[in-house]
């Protein structure tokens, strides 16, 4: 006969209470409990726990299903209108943002074109041209010359040194 002890009997007893023990094992358990009645006493304590739990759940007042359904139906309506409102708000926000961005782009382009038209393209280019007023050099006894080439419009810088040092220009 397979081994049976107190711990195993307890677990089988719990399963037997719930109708989850096979007939063969239930018979073995019965035989063990007859020989060890103090183990069987636990079954009464477990049944009492079940009774107390059922009594607790039954004693507590509950809403009627009709009253509960009224609450749930209201909650579903509120939840649905919240979702619709959020979707509408999101849609409006997207439209508003797109419109604002478009207006900004149009306004910026208009102002830029107007400025260029007023000042002339050359004036704009002139405004961005860098002017060289003088040139400093560390070469001893060197002279520098700066002028604008009339043909190309480029700024020419000359640095003149004595014959011993040679010439340098750019």
């Amino acid at each position, binding site marked *: 006969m397979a081994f049976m002890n107190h711990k195993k009997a*307890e*677990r089988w007893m*719990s*399963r037997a209470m*719930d*109708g*989850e023990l096979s007939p063969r094992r239930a018979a073995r358990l019965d035989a063990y409990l007859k020989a060890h009645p103090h183990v069987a006493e*636990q079954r009464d*304590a*477990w049944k*009492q*726990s*079940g009774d*107390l*739990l*059922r*009594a*607790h*759940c039954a*004693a*507590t*007042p*509950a*809403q009627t*299903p*009709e009253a*509960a*359904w009224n*609450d*749930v*139906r209201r*909650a*579903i309506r509120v*939840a649905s209108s919240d979702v619709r409102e959020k979707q509408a708000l999101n849609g409006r926000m997207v439209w508003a943002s797109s419109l604002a961005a478009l207006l900004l782009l149009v306004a910026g382009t208009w102002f830029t074109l107007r400025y260029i038209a007023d000042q002339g393209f050359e004036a704009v280019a002139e405004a961005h041209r860098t002017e060289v007023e003088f040139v400093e050099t560390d070469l001893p006894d060197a002279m520098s010359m700066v002028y604008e080439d009339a043909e190309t419009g480029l700024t020419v810088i000359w640095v003149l040194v004595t014959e011993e040092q040679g010439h340098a220009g750019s």
Partner: protein
Amino acid sequence: MNSRESESFDAADAVRRARAGDVDAFGLLMKAYHDKVYGILIGMIRHADDARDVSQQVWVKVWNKLDSFKGDADFYTWLYRVASFAALDFIRKRNRKQESGLLEEIEPARSPDSETAPSVVSRPDKELEQAEVQAAFNAALDLLSPEHRLALTLREVEGMAYDEIARVMKCRKGTVMSRIFYARKHMQEHLREWHS
């Protein structure tokens, strides 16, 4: 109405219509299973007002998630799973709030008859003893983990079989057996200490 009788009112048809947006069909489902769902929640949460609030949240969630019910299991198994996990979530949040001192100790649900403290009103001894046993039982239940409490509630209150409980709790049948056994042992030991 027990779980099997609920199915005979053609829950499948009500589910199909509810998924198509028929709110009245959903109302039929809700009324059919309301007491069962509430029974699980009160067994777990043990506070009537909280259980009512969570029950409402469960049904709104079920309505919103009807599309995710594939029909591969009984509707009530899926429903009990939603309710069970809602109860577990609520208990975990409540325990966290209690630990951080944000909540007073939650008093267990009382029936209308037990609103007055036993010491104030004289009652027959038997009723007083029953109230005290119930209070000791409630205290023992509070010490169980939410998962053990749920397994015991589904078995003792809903009369569900182990494999049904396993489907609801998304665990193995062996785990269900262990949880129920452990819960019973714990309740027995706690009540024995109280008696002694």
